[in-house]
């Protein structure tokens, strides 16, 4: 290897390694903390409502993922139909992904304003109860809806790309054999898309677990912790209040990391089983 290249490697790889080394090193600090302080931090996390936080995280993430996947898949199927103009429509679905979440969070905040906000006007018009950010159950629904809105465009675009790459002759053969649109979807396209579905599922789940800005502006984890996800707990314990505890934040961060890895691995195993 030439010296010049050695230098390139050093100046590019080493900073990278340093960055990751740091993250690993920190991981070790958590580890040594654990062995010395025992599981005290973890016990305290759970005795101070950590179980509730994890439940909120689960509800939020599942709701977020389901909403994104269902809306994204249906809209992608719709846009995949060959009609003039539909290709150009794709551009719109880039918008929610790229606009600053703080700005959109303000927008959603005003749309949930009692009586005068867009949603509550519509809900009232339909004779339904209003969504209030100060009521625990509806606040969680509101945060899920907003989080999903910001992300579903990505699901649309990824599914569209996947649909475009399906082998046309297989679909044609299915039509020739007399398969209707529903049958083609159920027995041909859906199984062919399985691999992509699993990948998008991983992506959406990790995104859901890392949702921060939306919660920060809309509810700040409230009311009464109803929208306090694991990541939000980490933030609040470490940086939020003067009374927070770094130890608790770290413990929850490790739990969050464990969940992320577990989710990713189990979903990836799922793909491999189905495709094998």
């Amino acid at each position: 290897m030439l010296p010049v290249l050695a230098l390139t490697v050093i100046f590019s790889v080493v900073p990278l390694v340093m960055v990751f080394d740091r993250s690993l090193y920190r991981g070790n600090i958590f580890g040594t903390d654990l062995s010395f302080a025992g599981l005290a931090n973890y016990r305290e996390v759970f005795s101070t409502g950590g179980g509730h936080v994890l439940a909120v995280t689960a509800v939020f993430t599942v709701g977020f993922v389901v909403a994104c996947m269902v809306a994204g898949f249906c809209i992608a199927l719709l846009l995949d139909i060959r009609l003039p103009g539909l290709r150009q429509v794709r551009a719109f679905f880039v918008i929610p992904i790229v606009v600053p979440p703080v700005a959109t969070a303000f927008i959603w905040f005003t749309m949930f304003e009692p009586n005068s906000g867009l949603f509550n006007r519509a809900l009232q018009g339909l004779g339904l109860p209003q969504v209030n950010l100060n009521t625990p159950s509806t606040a969680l629904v509101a945060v899920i809806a907003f989080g999903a809105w910001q992300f579903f465009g990505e699901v649309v675009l990824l599914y569209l790309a996947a649909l475009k790459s399906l082998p046309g002759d297989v679909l044609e053969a299915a039509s020739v054999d007399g398969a209707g649109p529903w049958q083609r979807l159920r027995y041909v396209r859906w199984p062919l898309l399985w691999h992509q579905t699993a990948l998008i599922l991983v992506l959406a789940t990790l995104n859901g677990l890392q949702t921060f800005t939306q919660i920060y502006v809309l509810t700040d984890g409230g009311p009464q912790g109803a929208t306090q996800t694991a990541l939000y707990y980490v933030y609040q314990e470490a940086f939020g209040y003067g009374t927070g505890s770094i130890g608790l934040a770290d413990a929850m961060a490790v739990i969050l990391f464990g969940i992320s890895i577990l989710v990713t691995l189990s979903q990836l195993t799922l793909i491999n089983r189905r495709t094998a």
Partner: protein
Amino acid sequence: MRMRLPARIAVYALVTVSVLLVLFPLLWMASAALKTNAEIIDPDSPLLPLHPQWSNLSTAWNTVPFGRFFLNTAIFSITTTAGWVATGMLAGYAFAMFDFPFKRVLFYVVLSGLMIPFTVVLVPVVQLLADVHWVNTYQGLIVPNLASALGCFLYRQFFLAAPLELGEAARIDGASELRIFWTVYRPLAQPMTGAFMIIAFLQNWNNFLFPLVVTNSEKLMMISQGLTIFEGQISRVTYNLMMAGSLIAVIPVLIVAMIAQRRVVEGLALGAVRG
């Protein structure tokens, strides 16, 4: 296969609905940004501003130092994006093209960076920055965000698939390794670089959590964090200014995204491969 007219009308209707699903919050914002505050709070007021208050925009612009925020955001996004591309490309190239000691181990280190969500190591990173007194500084904001494991991974995959013969030929012609990288392989990766760059730029531009915990001085604030001033300082009553401020923050990003729309779509697909 031709569709009947009713079916076609149904498709277009559904497409319109789904586009509105994307756009309605932005339309609501644009409308509210031009209303008086009394109109926004009044449940019976029309949805559109009847007497557009254009002055809201200038008032919002003057309420917080937007110019400063935009400048800070630009500095942050440009340097970090350049860092992502440079480190990603060079490291990925090295991993793909050369053998060196501990290559496998080093690559696993990079992969672990992909697996560890940044939010998980947020607390230790901030503690580390505090140790070297980098909290509330530009370098504290920028340096931890200079490298991208995703970039390294993507470029490695790309260069692994690149033809070796091109480099061989150049080597025989006496080109230095650096020159081979710069004039032969770097241009090959250009389309991917474009897509990666735009998506990195947008992601860094919108970064909120990290700047939030590393800075608290208005001089260093980025646009997203700056916007929250509308929520805190002015109290939640001035919705119209909040919306006008949001509008100011959204428009530049929207323009960039629309111009580079195809690249953005490609970039999103790149980001998805890591799963």
